[in-house]
Structures are given as C-alpha cells and as structure tokens.
C-alpha cells in the first residue's frame, strides 16, 4: 500500500504540473500584448499631441502675422488648421479664455495671441480597460509686434550724433529742413527710403550698372506707383522679406514724395515701434543708372513722432556690423512666447 502511494503521489503531482508552463506563457503573452498595446496607445498620444502643438504654433504665428498686415486672423488660423488636417471641431467653437483657453484663437489684452486645439483620439488597447478615448491638446502664444526690417537708410553721422546725445529724436524718413537725411546729396533730395527689392551689381560700382531684382518687382526701373507700393508693402511687412547684407549698394526711392512715404509708414506703425534700419556712410551716389547708397551697418530705432512729411525716431541699438549681432527681439516679427509669460512684452 505504502509502495503504491509512493508511486501514485508523484504521478498526481506531475499531472497537476501539466500545462503550467503553457499557462504561464499565455499569461506572459497577454502581458506582452498589453505592454505593446499600451506602447502603441502612448505612441499615438505622443504623436497626435506633437501634431496638435506644432499646428497650434503654426496657426498662432500665421494668424498673428495676418492681423499685423491687415488680414483676418481667425480665418488665417482656420485655414492653417484645415491645411494641416486638423478638424474644425478641434478649434471651434472657442472654449476657455486666457491661460485656460482650450480651443480656438484669442487676442489677449496685452496684444499677444493665444491659440489652442484639442480633440479626443480613440484608443487601441486601452479599450480593454474601458478607456476608449484619450485627450489630445496643443497650444501656443505669440506676438504680432512689427520689428522687422524696413527700407530706411540712416546716415552714420546721425548715429554718431545719437551716441553723443543719447535719446535724441530726429527725422529718419521724409523731409525735414532742420535735419538733413544725408551728408552729401549730390543734388538729390534723399528722403531716407531705399529699394530693398533692387540691388546694384556689382556692388563696388558706384554707377549701379546692373541690378538684381526681387519679386514682386519684375522690371527696372519701377514706375513711381510701383515704387510707392513696394515701399508701403515693406513698411507693412508684406512681400518684403529681404535683408541686404553689409556692402550692398541699394538704389534710393526718388519717385515717391516725402508725404507718401511718411503716410505709408504711419499707416502701419505707431509711436514706440522699433524699426530695423540700414546705415550708410552719408553719401548718396548719383552717377550712372541709379542714385544709390551703400549699407555699412544695421541699427534699431524707435519711432517717436509722426508728422505729415516726416517720421522721427530715436536710436535704441547699434550700429551692428552683422545680423547676428542684433538682439533677437529687434529682428523677429510675429513669433512665439511662452504660454504663461507675464512680464512686459518685448
């Protein structure tokens, strides 16, 4: 009897063991699938969140810039969303406000813009634990202040004057009998504006025998109307993403009155705006095809006074001998800032 028990017991034990590894491995397999599935869900969440964030950034900056140049910020924002495949329900109707904005585009009281998109994404494996959706959210905040380049050239001696008289305000555009805009005009009436869309080549030749032209300028010399339109566009920041390097020889605008130039500038700027200007040596070359000046430096001015025929400003930075020396808050146009920044806007 004892012998039989001794024989049967291990047999029972072995029978009980049958399939144990199989069960463990099945459980292991399930655990593996759960881990892989969770990773897939988290991957989708991360991937969609990055799309939401990047699209909110693009939409915010585009909308802010649209507002700056007189367009419709909301429709620009919507078109960027649509072009990037973001459904309308992700940004409209607007939900929340200020720091708590959840959907849509909103102009803040400080002049910045906030944009947010949010939607829900179906889950892949979290469904098994009764989680069928995951929230996707992206947001951005941006500024519209126009501190880009301008087609204004200021003589170097004016900067020297500013260094000797900090805070001095004088005319940088238009016509001012009390303040000459050039040291040597060679008989021309220089009004402070140059063409960014037309560069003399070779730049070493004072006679400006040839020109490189930039769209939308298609032929030279431009008509006085084209001249005025281009100057206005540049002041507005439209079709004027041109930054002539140091040494570039630029024709001056001489077919547009001081009144028109001042009006164009004043239509898109306000007192206090910072303007990146070109600095030339004070000589307006008048030989050959085009009256021109040579870019020596860059500088940043702040508008202080507008009048019918002129714009006054004060030097706030420069001269700079390269674009990389210019503080970034002087160079940028519409740009992002942090969502919860509370300090004075640059």
């Amino acid at each position, binding site marked *: 009897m004892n012998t039989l028990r001794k024989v049967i017991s291990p047999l029972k034990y072995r029978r009980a*063991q049958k399939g144990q590894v199989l069960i463990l491995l099945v459980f292991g397999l399930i655990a593996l699938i759960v881990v892989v599935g969770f990773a897939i869900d988290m991957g989708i969440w*991360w991937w969609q969140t990055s799309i939401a964030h990047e699209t909110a950034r693009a939409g915010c900056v585009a909308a802010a*810039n649209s507002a700056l140049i007189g367009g419709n910020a909301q429709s620009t924002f919507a078109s960027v969303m649509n072009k990037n495949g973001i459904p309308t329900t992700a940004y409209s109707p607007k939900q929340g406000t200020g720091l708590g904005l959840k959907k849509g585009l909103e102009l803040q009281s400080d002049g910045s813009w906030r944009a947010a998109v949010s939607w829900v994404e179906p889950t892949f494996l979290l469904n098994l634990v009764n989680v069928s959706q995951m929230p996707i959210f992206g947001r951005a905040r941006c500024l519209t202040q126009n501190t880009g380049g301008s087609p204004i050239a200021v003589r170097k001696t004016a900067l020297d004057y500013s260094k000797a008289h900090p805070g001095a305000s004088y005319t940088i555009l238009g016509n001012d009998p009390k303040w000459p805009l050039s040291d040597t005009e060679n008989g021309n009436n220089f009004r402070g504006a140059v063409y960014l869309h037309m560069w003399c080549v070779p730049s070493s030749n004072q006679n400006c025998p040839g020109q490189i032209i930039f769209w939308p300028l298609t032929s030279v010399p431009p008509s006085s109307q084209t001249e005025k339109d281009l100057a206005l566009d540049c002041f507005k920041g439209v079709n004027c993403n041109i930054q002539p390097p140091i040494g570039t020889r630029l024709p001056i605008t001489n077919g547009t009155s001081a009144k028109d130039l001042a009006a164009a500038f004043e239509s898109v700027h306000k007192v206090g705006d910072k303007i990146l200007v070109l600095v030339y040596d004070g000589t307006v070359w008048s030989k050959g095809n085009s009256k021109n000046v040579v870019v020596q430096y860059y500088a940043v001015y702040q508008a202080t006074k507008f009048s019918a025929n002129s714009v006054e400003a004060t030097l706030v930075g420069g001269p700079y001998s390269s674009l990389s020396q210019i503080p970034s808050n002087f160079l940028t146009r519409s740009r992002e800032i942090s969502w919860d920044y509370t300090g004075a806007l640059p």
Partner: protein
Amino acid sequence: MILMKKLPRSRGQSLVETTLVLPIIIMVLLFSIDPFLFAVNLALGKYYTFQAAREASIYMADGTHTCQQMANRVVGAGPPFLMVDTGGWSMTVTPCPNDTGWTTPTGQFVTATIIFHQKRVFWISPTGTVISQDIFQ
C-alpha cells in the same frame, strides 16, 4: 521501480510548451519592430516638415542663402530617420526654390513634404509621406 519506469514521462514538458508559445511571443515582438520604427519615422517626419515649413515661412533673402537651403538645414540638424538610408528620403518645400534671388510671397501657403523609404527589419518595408503647411510671413 518497475511502475516508475512505466509512468508517462513528463520530462521535457516545459520545453514543449515553451516551444509552442515562445515562437508566438517572438513573432509578436518581431512583427512590431517595423511598425514601431515606422511610427517613429512618421513622428520625425512630421516634426521636420513643420520646422521646414516654418523656416521657409520666415526666410529672408540675403543674397547668400536660398530658401531651400534654410528649409533643408532643419532636417540635417535633427536625429536621423531609423532604418532609412541617407538617400532613402527626400524633402520638397514649395514654393521655396534654390535661388538667392527669390523672396517669399506674404500670405501664401508653403508646403513641406517628406517621403521616406524604410528598410525592412523583419516584416514590411513601408514608405511614409508626411506633409505640413505654413504661411509665408
């Protein structure tokens, strides 16, 4: 002893069961490698196209750099695609030519597209296309 010898042998049972299930586990892992790499590459592609479109949208003609150069440099600066040869991907940004005399049309859309051909590790060799759009400032 005689009975013991006649009992059914259970030695190797674990091995058999492991042999049955382990291939499934390995297959799950192997089949997930290519899709996982593809997901990573899609995310990278999306990031790069957004950045390229942004670079193009703020491009300023300076007579030296072209729009295309500025847009392309964002891809060169980031981590490489996974299991994609150097020549296995291409990016186009339009309109954004390789022309120092070109300048941007404010308000128009710029489209960045990346196409990449991922090499097969185990299962599939997918081709990904990622597009992002921005507006010229």
